[in-house]
Structure formats: structure tokens, C-alpha cells
């Protein structure tokens, strides 16, 4: 497990869609490096024969009755949207121009 560089932070921030200013990347890299060093302790235990656990209560296929109920109206669902047009969420450009 290696350290984390400013370039790594910039790449991860891009993946996570967070526009971190260039002059803050170094500070984050330093803190994240210290945290990663600390959490590397997970490798200190012998887990060769241990099954990973994703959830405290083992459950599979939880079903409920398929009964029609009341749901939000379009107006309610759009009530918190930052931009709305024609009863739809209005979004910024999603395709590059031709």
C-alpha cells in the first residue's frame, strides 16, 4: 500500500465529481496519506480464512406485498429541484456539441 499524491487526489476528485482547487490538493493529499497509513492496520490481522461481511443482519430477497399505494405527485417530486421545465428536471448539457 503506497502513499497518495496530489495527482492521485486530483484524479479521485474528478471521479467523485468534486472540483477541488489546485492549491488545496496538497493539504488533502497530506491528510489522506496520514489516514491511509492509519487504516492500513486492517492488514495486521490474519484473515486468510475469514469470510467478508457486508451487512450486520444477513438477509436475502426481502419481499413485501405488491399493493398499489399513494406516491408523490410530479409537483411534489419536483418541489426541491434547482431547475424545472415542462414538469421535468431541467439539467445542464449532457452531450458534447456536434
Amino acid at each position: 500500500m503506497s502513499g497518495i499524491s496530489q495527482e492521485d487526489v486530483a484524479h479521485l476528485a474528478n471521479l467523485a465529481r468534486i472540483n477541488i482547487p489546485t492549491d488545496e490538493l496538497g493539504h488533502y493529499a497530506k491528510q489522506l496519506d496520514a489516514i491511509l497509513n492509519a487504516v492500513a492496520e486492517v492488514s495486521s490481522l490474519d484473515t486468510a480464512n475469514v469470510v467478508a461481511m457486508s451487512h450486520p443482519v444477513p438477509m436475502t430477497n426481502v419481499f413485501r406485498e405488491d399493493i398499489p399505494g399513494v406516491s408523490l405527485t410530479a409537483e411534489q417530486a419536483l418541489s426541491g429541484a434547482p431547475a424545472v421545465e415542462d414538469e421535468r428536471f431541467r439539467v445542464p448539457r449532457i452531450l458534447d456539441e456536434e
Partner: protein
Amino acid sequence: MSELIRKDASVLAGLVSSGEVSAVEVAQAHLDRIAVVDGDVHAFLHVDTEGALASAAAVDAKVKAGEKLSVLAGVPLGLKDILATNGLPTTCGSRVLDGWIPPYDATVVTKLREAGVVILGKTNMDEFAMGSSTEHSAFGPTHNPWDLERIPGGSGGGSSACVASFEAPLAIGTDTGGSIRQPAAVTGSVGVKPTYGGVSRYGIVALASSLDQAGPCARNVLDTALLHSVIAGHDPMDATSINAPVPDVIAAAKRADIKGMKVGIVKELGGEGYQAGVRTRFEESVALIESLGAEVVEVSCPSFPAALAAYYLILPSEASSNLAKFDGIRFGNRVGDDGTKSVEQVMSETRAAGFGSEVIRRIILGTYALSAGYYDAYYGQAQKVRTLIKQDFDAAFAKVDVLISPTAPTTAFKIGEKLDDPLAMYLNDVATIPVNMAGLPGMSLPIGLAPEDNLPVGLQIIAPAMADDRLYNVGAAIERELLAKWGGPILGMAPELAGA
């Protein structure tokens, strides 16, 4: 200041149901208290005066009509600002949700409303519940009523502080790694994280879905049990909700008899790294438990020292995924949409402007831990450690009925002291985190003041899954003895707030 604000929730419910005091009077007394002291404490992000008085009036109408009331009808409550409330702002302490008003209620909120509990407003918290001090709220920190220069714990510092400053007798918190129990410990109040799946997560903004659990906060064990009984139970809207009867926590809080029980001290949670006064009060509690006829033994949970590390991989991983929805498209604020930018650019600007530094740190960390090439070494390994922690608990509960430890390694620290040192901040939850990893119920109970700083110390009690009632039985037995020793509730020793 009205005497009503110092009364227990159980007493207030009795006064309201008998018609001796109206629910409106009770609500107004607490709203008045908030008006006087919350400028200093800052427990609330939003106070709903109109809604509180209206729901109180509805309870009074039922009293007049002779209708049967729930155990907490007419009792005021502070609600952590992470639970969706129809028509009331819900910010999660984040700028990205500033001004958002949900169109629906969380199941916990629905249950509270049906029970006639009077919601006074929304309480402050670390942004998206990430923190142990409430300093990471975008709207400014909450102050500990014991010393306004100190933190009230976190992430649910608003909930603990509103209870400890007599702004509300009850509050709802959420606990992912200790966010109900650690705030309770450092404010001298009681807080319970129920068994995972015991209380519905529907309508609660998710931090780490496999760890999050809502629970009750109050000033004594019985009030905490009453609130627990109101909010718990199976919910078809939450697929992880446990479909089983709620343990009888009220009866357990009234039983308060631990004669013949076996209590285990977790060897790995205590000792080095724990403040001297915390250790002193903990050791006194052990002696007290023995004097009540319980047998105390030491048990070892060898994988616990790796729990903090595993938690700070699992939590950021789940959080980085859960918080992807805050992108300025369907709700919340949008930044930079001037018509020229792509959706990716607008999302990136929205999230940079909307999230604080701790949230950004954890999202980046989670994104890293889930990356191809690192997944097995970090997230996968952390999940295996989680299994070992659960196995340690299973082995311990084969020998004892409940486990105990200090709730937090120190008393409340000064605001600003650990703000830019994430690792030091993370250590606050070293004793509470293993409980979330295994999905178990845990309580923090006030056990006195540390001699060196006169600040509250909490005892953590841990029970097996769906044995939440044991927490209340043990907690109430210890509380009864301590109340007799102190001559009254611990919060009676807190300094008067200047505004009052």
C-alpha cells in the same frame, strides 16, 4: 423560567394526559427556553414554533375528547436534521441542502407525529453526520451546556445539547459510529443506539447504510425507553428493517434488577489512551454493578484494536456512494449552471461549493478504497475485519449478558482543538465503533463528573442483537443508585446558562 422544562418526559406525559397542564403550555415553555438559551447553545438549526403549537393543540383536543393517548403525547422533542420532515427544512448540516424542504416524512417522524410527540424543530449536526464534535456543521458549531467553549459531541451534538440544556426533554439522533452515544456521554445525558434494523431508516439521509441507526436521546433511562418504544418496529419501507417484536424496553427500564447477571468488561476498550477521570468513574461503576449482585468478569475481544481502521474504510466507501446523489440535479442547490457548462462541470462545482472539507476527505478516501487495484486490500480486508469483530462479540456474549466500557476516551474537548486533525478526531469513537460494525444495541449512561475537569463521563453498555431491553434494565439499575448518591439528576450539577 417555567418549571416544566426540568420535568421528565414521563411526568410531562402524565400531566398532559390528566389535563393538569396543557400540551400547548408545555410546548410554549420549551419554545421560551429555546428563545432564551439557544443563542448561546445553538442546538437548533430550525425551530418550528407554529407546527409545534399546532400539534400540541391537537393533543389537547384529544385530552378534552377523552381519547386514549400514547405514552409520550404532548411531550416536546428535538429532531436531528438528517430525518426528512414534510414541509420543514432538512439540511443534514450541509450547504448543499440549504433550503431543501422534503415532500415526505421519515418513518420515525410519522411514528412521532402519530404518537402526539411535539416536534420543536431540527437539531444541528456534523455535515452528513461526519464528525464527533458538531464543528463540521456548515451552519456553525453547537456548544456544550456544561461549558460553552467545549464541544457537545457529534455528530448529533444538537440533539444531545438540546436535551442537556432543557430545551427539550427528548431528542432523536442517528448513530453510525457513536453519534448518539458519544454526544450523550459528553453532555451528561442518556442515548441509545438500537439494534441495527430495530428502527426504520426510511427517510433518514444515509451516511453508511450498513451502520446507520436512529435512536432515542433523553435525560434518564425510562424516558429513553419510552421514546425507543414509540419509534421502533418493522417497516416495509426499509428492506433492512427486522420483522420481529420490539423488545419490551419500558418494562426493562422499570425492572432495574441486575442481581445474578454476568457483566463483561471489554479488556481492549479502556486503560491506556483513556483520561484518568474517565477511568476513575468507570472503575466506580464496576464496583457499583458488583454491589448490586451482578458478577463482573473481564473478556477479551482481540480484533477490536483494528475496528477503527476498518470503520474508516467501510464508512467512507459507503458514504462516497450514498452522497453521489447530491449533485444539484434533483434537489438541493446547483452552482455554476450558466448555460455553457457540461453536466459534469456543474456537478463538480455544485459539490465543491456544497460540501465541507471533512465530507470531501471521506468521499475521496472512499473513492480510493473502492478503486480497482485497492479494493481487496482496503474495503475487502475491512469487511473481513468486520467479521472478526462480530465473532469476538459472539464469543463474549456466550459468557456474559452485557458488556461495558467507557463510552468515550475523554470528556468534552475545546471547540477548535481537533478540528484540523482528522485522526485525533476519529479516536473519539474508538469504543463505540465496534458496536455499529456488529449491528448491536448500545447505551451511554452518565456515571459522574471527571474529578480533574468536572465534565460528564459516560458508561457504555452493549447487549446482543435484539436484546435492547437488557441495556435499559442495567442502565436503570445503575441510574437508581447514582441518583441516590448524587441527590438528584446529574444535569442538576450543570452551570446555569447565562441567558436564563
